[in-house]
């Protein structure tokens, strides 16, 4: 069979193999807090000039966000408020969930457990139930459940990872509920990796001080998402698919009391009235901030931020974008797809073109990514020019994946990292014998809608959980804390929404907030053509787009 790697890359692999025996013997050095700062300031894309601007309107006016996000927040309603007849109600429920990923599904189950009957809960989502970032999580979920670990130790790790910019109450909720979440999963039938006595097999993640990463092979998100979705099905909780929300509805008192959905196939709108609404729309990877490829699912277009912001909720920490250090950089077909941090957790090291280790494999993500970019950037850009160049001109860093089997025994990679193994095997690359090439990929929305520890936003009747919300992870999330986040805050938001629904008495429904927001935009001189939410990214070929005409 032809070598999947071209000659220049193969030669570099020779150098990776040559340095391996020596590297296996030494413990890599960690960076000091000062050294971390320096890498971030000089090489993390967040700190690059010109990538962000101040918001012109809305509750977080004056805050910096990436241009790609500002373009959506400073945009007119996709649907003209005057075209919608709110009097014709299609669904009337107690708890409306927007987003059928992890947070949304957990919120639905929790609202149900808090006493809301299944037929008074409605999940609505953009694609199919479960098509989400949650489904894609590979590496694991954190929880301090081992004897030598504790929620306070976990707390400190979360803060350190987030550069101490996190909301303490949210972090506390996160670490404190973590063991209970894992126990709940165990009871629902999630197959965590365990030894024969039932002890969880846990490893390190970037920035953890204890081995508390729980996993289900490298399909951790798939396994959790499959189980919670199946549980929702067995309880008879309905999900309206292919119906993204395009606007929230508020009543004359300002409380959120439902949503306007838009059927992606028939293109008609649907009105849902609800006593409480949970926003669980996930993140923003598909905005391709600063042109980066992304690891995220197709629907990760930041819609929830747009909807909540227009309805009056504040946003925070959106100036910080998470780039995962190890996105695939070769072959071309899989550029941007994720290679889980678990691979480094199991011993694989990042190496430059000479096979040299240039950073500890498990620094917090932003630092690790910054170090990758420094290694790959040319000396003219202030970098070290030590990246590996692919035939299409991408530059990347080797991830020395064969170390996994050398450390843990032959067959480990294929067995415990089967998703990654499979992804490369399609292109005749065996990561158990050859390293794979990586480069940072746009991965996670660190910030989001401001919530309190119950999952309530500043807008009455509106709750949020999961990646759409902010504050939990400060300026940088650690691996394994977002699967945890969607469970902890999905649950808290579901319970709080159930409680709210029991006493809420929504008044006259209106879309005035959207109309008012449009007026504000007009006052600020924003181009009328700009509309949001974006719902789906645009990947059609240029030739088609240039010739497209709207005829029938």
């Amino acid at each position, binding site marked *: 069979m032809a070598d999947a790697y071209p000659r220049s890359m193969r030669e570099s692999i020779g150098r990776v193999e040559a340095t391996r025996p020596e590297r296996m013997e030494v*413990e890599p050095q960690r960076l000091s*807090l000062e050294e971390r700062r320096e890498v971030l300031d000089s090489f993390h894309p967040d700190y690059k000039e010109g990538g962000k601007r101040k918001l012109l309107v809305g509750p977080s006016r004056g805050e910096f966000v990436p241009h790609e996000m500002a373009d959506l927040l400073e945009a007119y309603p996709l649907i003209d408020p005057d075209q919608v007849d709110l009097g014709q109600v299609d669904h009337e429920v107690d708890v409306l969930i927007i987003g059928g990923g992890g947070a949304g599904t957990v919120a639905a189950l929790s609202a149900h457990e808090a006493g809301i009957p299944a037929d008074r809960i409605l999940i609505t989502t953009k*694609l*199919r139930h479960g*098509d*989400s970032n949650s*489904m*894609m999580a590979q590496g694991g979920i954190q929880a*301090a*459940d*081992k004897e*030598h670990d504790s929620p*306070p130790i976990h*707390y*400190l790790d979360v803060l*350190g990872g987030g550069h*101490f910019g996190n909301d*303490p109450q949210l972090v*506390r909720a996160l670490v*404190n509920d973590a*063991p*209970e979440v*894992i*126990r709940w999963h*165990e009871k*629902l*039938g999630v*197959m*965590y990796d*365990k030894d024969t006595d*039932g*002890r*969880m097999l846990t490893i*390190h993640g970037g920035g953890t*001080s204890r081995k508390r990463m729980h996993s289900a*092979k490298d399909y951790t*998100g*798939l396994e959790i998402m499959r189980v919670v979705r199946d*549980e929702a099905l*067995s*309880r008879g909780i309905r999900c309206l698919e*292919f119906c993204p929300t395009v606007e929230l509805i508020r009543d004359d008192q300002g409380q959120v009391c439902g949503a306007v959905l838009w059927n992606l196939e028939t293109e008609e709108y649907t009105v849902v009235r609800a006593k409480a609404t949970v926003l669980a729309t996930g993140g923003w990877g598909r905005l391709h901030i600063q042109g980066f490829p992304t*690891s995220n*699912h*197709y*629907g990760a277009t930041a819609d929830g931020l747009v909807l909540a912001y227009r309805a009056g909720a504040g946003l925070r920490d959106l100036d910080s974008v998470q780039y995962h250090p190890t996105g695939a950089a070769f072959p*071309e*077909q899989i550029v941007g*797809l*994720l290679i889980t941090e678990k691979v480094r957790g199991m011993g694989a090291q990042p190496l430059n073109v000479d096979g040299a280790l240039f950073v500890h494999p498990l620094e917090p993500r932003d630092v690790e990514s910054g170090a990758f970019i420094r290694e790959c950037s040319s000396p003219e850009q202030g970098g070290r020019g030590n990246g590996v160049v692919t035939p299409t001109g991408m530059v990347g860093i080797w991830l020395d994946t064969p170390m996994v089997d050398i450390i843990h025994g032959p067959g480990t990679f294929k067995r415990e990292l*089967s*998703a990654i193994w*499979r*992804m490369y095997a*399609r292109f005749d690359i065996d990561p158990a014998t050859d390293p794979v090439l990586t480069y940072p990929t746009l991965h996670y929305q660190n910030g989001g809608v401001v919530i309190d520890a119950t999952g309530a936003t500043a807008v009455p009747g509106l709750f949020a959980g999961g990646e759409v919300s902010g504050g939990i992870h400060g300026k940088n999330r650690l691996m394994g804390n977002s699967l945890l986040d969607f469970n902890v805050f999905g649950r808290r938001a579901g319970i709080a929404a159930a409680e709210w629904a029991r006493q809420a008495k929504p008044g006259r429904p209106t879309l005035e907030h959207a109309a008012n927001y449009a007026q504000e935009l007009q006052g600020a001189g924003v181009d009328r053509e700009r509309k949001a939410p974006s719902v*789906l990214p645009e*990947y*059609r*070929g240029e030739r*088609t787009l240039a010739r497209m005409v709207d005829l029938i």
Partner: protein
Amino acid sequence: MSAEQDMIRIYIMGKAYEVPGGLTIMKAMEYAGYRLVRGVGCRGGFCGACATVFRRAGDYKLYADLACQATAEDEMYIAQIPSVPAERASWVLTELAPEDNPILALYPEVARCVACNTCTRACPQELEVMDYIQAALRGDIPQVAELSFDCVQCGLCAMRCPAEIVHYHVGQLARRIYGAYRAPEAGHLAARVQETARGDFDQELDKLEQMSKDELVELYRKRDVES
């Protein structure tokens, strides 16, 4: 190689399009001008939304794969499956007894498996699908759970099965029974849940929550890292 030479011809639902070689089927369809709504989800091989059936020129056989993972080839005839209308049996985990093997009661068609192996051939994850259906027939739940673990529930197995078996739902049932009742419980986890419920860490967390940033940074610097 010139740009023209790089182009290949694919047939999307029977219609020919020229697209650059080396794209995934999904990206090739988008290049051709399709804005995907169905048949796309994670774009990373995890969600099973992009089940695709195809044929190669000069070959009468139908193949199946994931559009987001498989590379488009010259003279490929492509159709996506927008939705799989298979039925999930109605059951509730807590109403199943731990020692039960409810598979045959809930999915009796499993007994009709003729061991033709079509399901296994259809599986884009290359799982031993027929083997787990045979294991289900024997009541070997751990085996079903293990062999079906990497399933992305695309439904291609069920669409091809001459015996109308819904393999991916059978796998889901077995995995949940295994995870909840057959796998040994994590003792340390149960113990920790008791401690958090009792509030054993509350004081320490109170203290941390009140600390200034400087104090926290100091603590963080001094923390010991498990090796």
